[in-house]
């Protein structure tokens, strides 16, 4: 078992000396190549999720499969270990099956295109790009069925196959893939765009090999990886304490009435190595919220965060991976056994970022940000339009950015890199929709010396009968505040029927039927606050109130009393602030808006929706892995 790489020229690359300047030149060439890959896919893809929102990510890796430029880390060694066959010049691989590539991608919607780059007969590098397809078949439009119990319900599973062989498209494979999706035109164009992007990287690697020579290119990539290794050795010593620290957070439910689900992690350092142990994480779910987390992906998340916090200039790659030891218990939410369903993993994926932030923050509180990775809330809307043509929308929403050491969280922006919202005019031109408003939600950001960003409310008026699906979270738990900052507002969804009734829509649901004239109000969460809100200058609170980013009542949570014209009433403010300080409890690093039992008890009263049941006992899902 394992990939067999067919090289037509013999001999490994030789490590040769490379000057700093040439290394930097190669680094910027590789970085440019990666930017070009982005440009190609965003311009030529068709599904709004990729072309407008940019849900696609490239990497370029060295011959050993370590990512030299890109983000979301390398998954090539997972592929190499899992693939049983030859790897030849002119091959392009395709897979979407997390279980057959050791979690290189984490649900079936993500189609991964992977290409070995040979130069003069020898393997020189790899390029890859994964992209979220709007639909990959399965039981519901959008292929993210909330109630799936097995991956078989979530769409076509494409094991690692060659989609190109000898630089020729393998048409039969493509036909099978496209036959199994509801939007074959989009998938075809998106896949072609991915292939164009990885092929572009091949051209760039060839140019670099010719310009500098293959040994020098190889050596420079090694140096780039070593730079990260050396830099992270310092970073880890600074941020990971030898004494273990723990953090836990939750996703609220699985959409089937079960929840909340806990993920827990303990971190400590032994010499140069940092250990992350996920013992204490809940067992895998019986539905689709599981997140098949590859340890390498976690290493990437850790690296992305620490590098931003401690040295934004560092150039980021896989070089430091050997310094991290990630332990994930088999059969838990983060390492479920096949055939567990995986489609709705977005909630746990997002929560992982909050978890890392909370974990690292304990070693260096002043560098910590509030929480804000609720989920990447999805809205799906599909049906047949007036002409009888199928339409299918997949849209990702955004909330407020968490408050940060450098200042307020930004209102209504994306935590995901490169993501953008879909313009209202685009939605209205291509889908039977009228958007009644897109506005930030006052008071939804967590109060703090630095205010958390506000979430967004979008009002969708449906003009054709159809079905909607929703995937969202943080409707029970709050995005937490830090260092005295307060927890932020939660997400909520309301459907006002044309017939005059109104209903609350749960955070995860499928096939909710809508009729023309029904309006969905989709409100996202805010970002957690940072620092004590009573220390926020009253004039900033007043300025936010004047432009509707907070309300008069919201200002009171900062201890600021606003007068008639929303100017601060200085005397009343001073008095209120004294009172708040006097009544404050003991200082705490985190404000969760209440502990989990409290939140569940208050759930129905506060959200209008019943609290979920505690997940069933682990015994039920423990079976031998099915391969």
């Amino acid at each position, binding site marked *: 078992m394992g990939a067999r790489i067919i090289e037509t020229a013999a001999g490994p690359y030789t490590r040769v000396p490379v*000057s*700093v*300047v040439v*290394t*930097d*030149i190669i*680094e*910027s*060439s590789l970085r*440019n190549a990666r930017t070009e890959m982005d*440009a190609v896919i*965003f*311009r*030529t893809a*068709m*599904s709004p999720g990729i072309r*407008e929102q940019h849900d696609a990510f490239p990497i370029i890796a060295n011959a050993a499969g370590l990512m030299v430029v890109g*983000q979301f880390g390398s998954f090539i060694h997972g592929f190499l270990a899992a693939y049983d066959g030859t790897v030849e010049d002119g091959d392009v691989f395709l897979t979407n099956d997390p279980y057959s590539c050791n979690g290189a991608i984490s649900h079936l919607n993500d189609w991964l295109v992977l290409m070995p780059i040979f130069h003069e007969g020898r393997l020189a590098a790899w390029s890859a790009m994964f992209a979220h397809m709007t639909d990959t078949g399965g039981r519901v439009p959008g292929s993210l069925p909330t109630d799936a119990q097995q991956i078989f319900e979530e769409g076509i599973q494409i094991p690692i196959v060659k989609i190109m062989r000898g630089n020729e498209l393998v048409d039969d494979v493509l036909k099978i893939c496209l036959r199994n999706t509801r939007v074959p*035109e989009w998938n075809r*164009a998106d896949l*072609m*765009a991915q292939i*164009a992007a990885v*092929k572009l990287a091949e051209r760039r690697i060839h140019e670099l090999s010719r310009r500098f020579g293959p040994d020098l290119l190889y050596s420079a990539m090694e140096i780039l990886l070593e*730079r990260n290794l050396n830099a992270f050795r310092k970073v880890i010593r600074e941020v990971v304490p030898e004494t273990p620290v723990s953090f836990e957070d939750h996703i609220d439910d699985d959409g089937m009435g079960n929840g909340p689900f806990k993920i827990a992690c303990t971190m400590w350092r032994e010499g140069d190595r940092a250990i992350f142990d996920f013992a204490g994480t809940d067992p895998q779910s019986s539905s689709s919220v599981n997140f098949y987390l590859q340890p390498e992906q976690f290493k990437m998340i850790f690296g*992305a*965060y620490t*590098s*931003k916090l401690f*040295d934004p*200039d*560092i*150039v*980021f790659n896989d070089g430091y991976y050997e310094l991290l030891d990630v332990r994930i218990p088999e059969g838990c939410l983060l390492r479920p056994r096949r055939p567990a369903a995986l489609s709705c993993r977005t909630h746990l994926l997002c929560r992982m970022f909050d978890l890392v932030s909370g974990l690292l923050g304990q070693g260096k509180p002043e560098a910590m*940000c509030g929480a804000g990775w609720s989920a990447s809330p999805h809205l799906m809307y599909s049906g047949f339009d007036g002409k009888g043509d199928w339409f299918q929308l997949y849209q990702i929403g955004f909330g407020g*950015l968490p408050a*940060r050491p*450098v*200042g307020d969280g*930004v209102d*209504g*922006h*994306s935590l*995901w*890199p490169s*993501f*953008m*919202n879909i*313009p*209202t*005019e*685009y939605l*209205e*031109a291509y889908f039977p929709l*009228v958007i009644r408003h*897109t*506005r*930030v939600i006052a008071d939804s950001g967590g109060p703090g010396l630095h205010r958390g960003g506000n979430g967004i409310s979008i*009002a969708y008026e449906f003009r054709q009968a159809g079905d909607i699906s929703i995937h969202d979270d943080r409707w029970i738990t709050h995005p937490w505040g830090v260092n005295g900052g307060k927890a932020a507002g939660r997400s909520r969804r309301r459907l006002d029927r044309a017939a005059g009734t109104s209903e609350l829509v749960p955070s995860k649901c499928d096939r909710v039927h809508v009729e023309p004239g029904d309006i969905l109000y989709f409100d996202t969460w805010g970002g957690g606050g940072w620092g004590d809100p009573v220390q926020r200058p009253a004039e900033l609170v007043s300025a936010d109130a004047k*432009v509707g980013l907070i309300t008069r009542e919201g200002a009171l949570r900062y201890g600021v009393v606003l007068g008639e014209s929303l100017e601060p009433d200085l005397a009343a403010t001073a008095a209120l602030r004294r009172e708040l300080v006097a009544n404050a409890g003991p200082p705490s690093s985190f404000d969760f808006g209440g502990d989990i039992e409290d939140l569940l008890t208050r759930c129905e009263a506060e959200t209008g929706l019943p609290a979920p049941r505690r997940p069933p006992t682990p015994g039920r899902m423990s079976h031998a892995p099915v391969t």
Partner: protein
Amino acid sequence: MADPAPIQAVPTSYILGVDIGGTFTDLLLVREADGAIFTAKVPSTPADPSVAVLTGIDRITEHHGIPRERIRTVMHGTTVATNAVLTRSGVRVGLLTTKGFRDVLHIGRSFVPGNLGAWVTWQRPSPLVPLSSVVEVNERILADGTVDRPLDEAALRLDIHRLGDERIEALTISFLNAYVDGRHERLAREIAHEELPGIQVSISSEVAPEMYEYERTVTTVVNSYVGPIVKSYVDNLQSLLSRQIPSVNLRILRSDGGLASGEAAAAAPVNHLMSGPAGGVTGAIWVAKQTGFPDFLTFDMGGTSTDVALVQGYEARTRRETAVHEVIVRAPSLDVKSVGAGGGSIAFVPALTEALRVGPRSAGAVPGPAAYCKGGTEPTVTDANIVLGYLPADVRLGGELEVDVALAEQALEKIAGPLGLTVREAAEGVIDIVNENMFGALRLVSVEQGYDPRDFALMAFGGAGPLHANALGALLQSWPVVIPPGPGVLCAYGDATTRLRNESSRSFVRRFGDTTAAEIRAVLAPLAADAAAGLEEGAAATVSYQADVRYCGQGLVMPIDLSTADLQGDIPALLRERFDRTHEQLFVFALDSEAELVNVRATAEAGGLDLASRPLPAGDGSPAAAELDRRRIFHHGTEHEATLYDRARLRAGDRVEGPAIITEMDTTSLILPGHHGLVERHGSILIYPNDMPAEA
């Protein structure tokens, strides 16, 4: 280049090109009869740029004994609009939006630049209109043009006064779907004129009638933001000029390289944001026509940034957006890429990674490079050039600057130490890295667009371009490297030699299967008439057309050109064929999916100048008469002896062997070892590698 003597006997008219830079204002006077050229360089006057223009006119006319009233037209590339955006010094703008969408600028596209985690440190630039100056209007037009809610006039009349209280100086009206139907915007404008008299109003359906509410709103807001500034600047300049030269016409260069009347510029200033760089490209095209290189890359390197563009068949590529720093608007501009790399770029070594980085931080004019004795202490690209001997310290730059080599060496020590290099090695590293950054920009406009740079010449200008051009030519394998005459005033050449242009466009979303040649012709006809009407009366116009095309559902729009002749053919088939071909060239694949039209436009251009050219006197092939001195330079780790020449004394046909340094008033050109320069008959220097047969 020596100024030619005036011909007193011939009564002739003149065209004046004026380029206002950060430090100097360049003027170039062209005698229409014979193409004779007169130049002047005066210090810029940032407080009121027109002062320098008038000073320059005085100097150039007095010095050459030219009667002022002979100046028929003043053509001008201006950075007034650019600077207002860059320095955030535009006017207070109010914004009317559709009810429910007041946050259109506040939320934008929800985009955070950078990699995963970049949001942690990102500082968001504040929108050009604060939320306090946004008013929602109760109105709604749908995507198919139907009026869903009529505009509530009474409420608008009340609400708009809040903007008066905010003391706005200009107003933008941008309603949802106004790209389909602008009637509500026009109605709101009427009301605004009545309720807030004297306030300039820009409406999105006129400024940028294209889909995507955020982009259209930003574009219209920028139009408002710089509008009053551009208008008062143009009005002021026009009236000052008219006082001295009663019949003079003022023309302003557009970002897309065309010219507009002063009036048109004041009405749509968003079209002039990149007026400055466009001047350089059009000037380069003019030089290229003389020297006979139709395909070339431009390389305009200044103190803080470098602008590059691709020109094919004497036509620069244009694109549908203009970027000024982080402000990106939907207005046509020449496809000029800018990188933060220039003579003033600062080199540093980050502690954690121990790499060598250059820029984008710049020492600017103040404190400037360390060697310039104005208090700069950080090592810049200019310091590296001085240490390596490329910029001779004893040759006065622009006649003014004092240069101290020791200060440059001290500054470079700062990076040489941590890198374990000698000062000269570090200086070469700085040059190599900055060249690589600029090489990256040149690749963006060539390789990444499917062009092979080996098929192009490289035209270098700007203060520092001729110093780095030979090295860039070698990286790109673009030969020859062309150093035009007067590389420091090339923008003014561009200003003086371009044509009036006007454009009219509209959104026209149609699948190819749902439209016909007749329908497209019917849509284009009024656009052509509209575009031509925007030119001066009497100007004979040529009209060209363009359609933005994409595969149905795709995100890009690709502009495809149509000539007047094409209109008689099967337009959909022509467009489809050209689109597939271009798509394949750019992205390696074409699809058999259905394609659609998105926008269509017509561009009218007035007849251009056909300036006579004046060749340089021929020499005997040897540049010996221009030789000034010899210099030690350091290149590729070894010392070489370079010859120093005075450009003004070079003659046509001279062959200059590298290594050589050629100086002129404000620019220094470097010819590297293993290369030579040929002085072409119009004065350009063409640099070739010695191991390549010259094609002069």
